[in-house]
């Protein structure tokens, strides 16, 4: 197999989506993707994350690569490669900005040196690595052949030689009044060190740094240029060599390697993002993807966006399980406010979407469905003024969703019809649910209407739970249980976590 792309198994599948999928906001996938791609703008990764795959083998192709990259050594090797290529780009950009000839030339030389080093290191690294994924195996073959090619070898040799020559340049300036003399360095000792040593004994700990920061302009002023000019006269051969080198090597960068450098960031970015969560003990797994069986499950899953936020604040993340068996298709989630219901719904959506990108998903073990379309309908707090108009909008939207759906779609609804009377809400919700039941599609429905949980054998009732002896404390656990509509009191000492039990836990000595 000839290597084409590390992201797409079939060259003809290569596709990037520029627009954000409609459900991103509701599922907080926008937050997730923003965090994943933060600091990686130069790679323009979002189009990859906006493009779900619809072929199981294409997903598996990515899963293999991602799984392989979970090996810390390989991961660091690829990162180090990417960092080098990034530095190379910066050098080229700089070379084009500068003014004096010998500055431009030196930046170009450095850029090529970094590129050669990046290629060689990666070849070495990969040759020592036992690779299994189809993607990496093909890439290694390509890269190895390239590195052994004649053009690359001679480029490398020439670059090294020239750098070594330039490193030997060392000169002295004597500044007296307005005269400057330039000559080669002759081994004079460092006077600053001597002074420093004399006063060493007064050292008391950290003091202010009086070193003046000089402008770090990469440009030279005319005095510096004049000095460099005199230095080139001290070392004429070396600078002639540099001129010739630049004239000959303008077109050194390999296109396939450049594409790899961008695409591999898709994996790097995602793995870096979940690493923080893994560190907190949260689990990720590669889901089995199916487009036939709807007996899906995920154990110890969680909302990725929320977990990322909590992990950074040092708070604990609550995991939840779900499964569907036999005829079960729909989760109806009820329970206390702020009890994790919406989070559960988002988790369900996120898991399926991320799985369709070929990414590992939150959870210990997962079996997920390859959907054709994913729809969300989340209650928005705003525009609550025009109740009738809002209800109409809601219904239109749901009608829209249902008419676009197939039996392979997923629908996630969060607190719909809250703006109408209870009677209306019950009626409309029932109607919508009946449709969904009839279409046999996968659905999560978060609602305050307990009755919905008992509509059909396709429905599984999930309830947000509280600590039995203290209803004020949410567990954020969503469990399979008949909807029950508990009442919740508030105990003041509990609120401040000052009961005996709390203190024994809080005081960690």
């Amino acid at each position, binding site marked *: 197999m000839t290597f084409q792309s590390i992201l797409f198994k079939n060259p003809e599948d290569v596709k990037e989506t520029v627009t954000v999928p409609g459900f991103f906001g509701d599922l907080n996938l926008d937050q997730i993707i923003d965090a994943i791609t933060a600091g990686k703008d130069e790679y323009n990764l979002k189009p990859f994350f906006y493009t779900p795959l619809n072929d199981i083998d294409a997903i598996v192709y990515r899963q293999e690569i991602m799984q392989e990259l979970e090996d810390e050594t390989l991961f660091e090797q690829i990162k180090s490669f990417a960092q080098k290529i990034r530095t190379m780009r910066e050098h080229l950009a700089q070379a084009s900005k500068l003014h004096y000839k010998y500055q431009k030339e030196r930046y170009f030389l450095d850029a090529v040196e970094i590129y050669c080093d990046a290629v060689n290191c990666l070849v070495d690294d990969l040759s020592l690595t036992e690779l299994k994924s189809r993607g990496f195996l093909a890439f290694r073959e390509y890269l190895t052949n390239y590195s052994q090619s004649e053009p690359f070898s001679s480029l490398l040799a020439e670059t090294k030689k020239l750098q070594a020559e330039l490193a030997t340049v060392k000169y002295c300036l*004597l500044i007296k009044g307005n*005269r400057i003399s330039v000559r*080669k360095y002759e081994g004079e000792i460092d006077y600053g060190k001597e002074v420093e040593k004399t006063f060493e004994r007064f050292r008391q700990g950290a003091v202010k740094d009086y070193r003046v920061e000089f402008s770090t302009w990469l440009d030279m002023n005319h005095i510096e240029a004049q000095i460099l000019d005199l230095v080139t006269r001290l070392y004429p051969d070396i600078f002639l060599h540099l001129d010739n080198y630049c004239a000959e090597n303008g077109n050194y960068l390999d296109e396939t390697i450049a594409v790899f450098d961008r695409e591999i960031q898709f994996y790097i970015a995602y793995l870096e993002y979940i690493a923080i969560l893994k560190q907190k003990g949260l689990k990720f797994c590669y889901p089995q993807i199916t487009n036939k069986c709807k007996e899906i499950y995920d154990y110890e899953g969680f909302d990725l966006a929320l977990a990322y936020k909590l992990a950074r604040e040092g708070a604990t993340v609550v995991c939840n399980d779900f499964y569907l068996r036999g005829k079960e298709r729909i989760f109806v989630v009820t329970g206390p406010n702020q009890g994790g219901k919406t989070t559960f719904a988002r988790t369900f959506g996120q898991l399926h979407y991320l799985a369709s990108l070929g990414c590992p998903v939150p959870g210990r073990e997962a079996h997920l469905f390859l959907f054709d379309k994913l729809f969300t309908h989340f209650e928005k707090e705003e525009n609550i003024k025009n109740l009738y108009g809002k209800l109409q909008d809601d219904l239109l939207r749901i009608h829209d969703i249902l008419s676009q759906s197939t039996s392979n779609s997923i629908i996630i609804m969060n607190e719909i019809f809250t703006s109408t009377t209870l009677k209306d809400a019950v009626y409309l919700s029932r109607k919508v649910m009946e449709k969904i039941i009839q279409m046999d599609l996968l659905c999560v429905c978060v609602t305050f209407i307990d009755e919905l949980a008992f509509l059909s054998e396709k429905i599984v009732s999930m309830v947000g739970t509280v600590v039995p002896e203290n209803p004020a404390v949410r567990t954020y656990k969503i469990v399979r249980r008949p909807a029950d509509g508990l009442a919740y009191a508030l105990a003041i000492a509990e609120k401040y976590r000052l009961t005996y039990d709390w*203190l024994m836990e809080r005081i960690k000595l």
Partner: protein
Amino acid sequence: MKVFLMYKDRNFDLQQELPSNAQALIQDLALDTLFNAMACGDEFLFEVARKALLAGLNNDPDIIIYRQDILKDCLENPAIIRAIYDIAIESIEREKKNYLGIFSRYPAAILHRSLEVLQLFVEMLKKLRTIADEHAGKFRSEGFTAFFKMLNRELSDEYFAIIQKHLRELQFRGGVLISAELGKGNKGNNYILRKPLDKKQGWMERIFGPRPAVHTFSIAERDESGARALAELKDRGINLVANALAQSADHILAFFKTLRAELAFYIGCLNLHGRLSSIEESVCFPLPAVPGERRYSFKGLYDACLALTLGRKVVGNDVNADRKDLVIITGANQGGKSTFLRSIGLAQLMIQCGMFVPAEFFCASTCDGLFTHYKREEDVTMKSGKLDEELNRMSDIVDLITAHSMVLFNESFAATNEREGSEIARQIVGALLDKHIRVFFVTHLYEFAHSFYDKNMANALFLRAERQDDGSRTLKLIVGEPLQTSYGEDLYNSIFGTSCPSDSASNPACSSDNSLVMD
């Protein structure tokens, strides 16, 4: 060159963060009175006293003894201590006065300024060494012995001579010689100041032997940007040496500042000692013990802040609470409970920072955290709001608490009815005890106090504010079972002047001083 008069191996850090409950400690233990007595009107002494006392909670018995010995030396040689303190102050003042505001972005200016400051410091260091030469023999503590030895070793006449030579050479009369290499983009970098090979003949003049190629150019008279660029090159060359000199000046300044700060603590102790002697109160050096020994006993412990405020001797208490984790204090209002509790907290802080304590005898295990949870009179709003506030503060304490902490409660959790308050207090204290945290609790919550009394715990001690039969108080505490009254009627009687026997007989609990929050 290190001072090390507060710790054997590090400086006293005046900038250190105080524990976040410091403000509560100051307020609850009336620490400002103590700081003022130590400061005698000097702001700096006040600040040092504040920092030393409030940041002393991590000191182990070794550090405490180290400081106690130094303090004993100070008490015997107060005049010498004050003379050294004055040298430190003069050095700092003159550095500030003469050279303030010369801060600059130019190494040449920094170099010039540093040379002048160093001249001044050399002069002051010589003075310091003279004192050391004369008086070192009078000091016995480990700290002072090492300090004087250090001065003698580090500040020899030869060393002063070397410094003078450098200060002369750094005028650069023969020009500045700098080496450089090619850096990023072939721009010169790694500029290093060099000492010319031959002092008498500059390298330009050496015409014998293989003559090195030298290229020279001058900046035109009117080329101002060229002159600036040249000055910058020169500045790059002397940047490091200017920095080294400026930092050396700062290091010596820091030495004087540390000397001033560390001595300021002992000067503060001398001041306090003077104040207490003048009202004929006695002090003693306490015996610190490690936390594991769970020592806590004293004789004649009095509240130094109260004595200083009243300007006369006050009543002291004797308690043996060795191997007790819980001390519950109950009894009459204005029977000296709060004063007693304050004297405990104050003494612990003084012990921890190496001071003497206001007592005849004191032996205590050190702690690493001291917390006060006092009923706050100010925001008496709604009942629930007040309990909220109290619990919130308690929760803050729990966040900070450490293994060898000590917590002083004063009338805590009384913002609700007695049963609820007792239950909250019982759970909190129960947990603290199970974590082996030392608790002193002044309370009117009878249910709470008695529930612990009934358990007959070996590690609990119960003290009671004593009352003479005629109603007049001794302000001394005795060991005894919690009683279900706090003699509030006494207070009532003393304020209203008339006895109200029916009231007190029928419902003594009502006369507790929590009446403000009763329904």
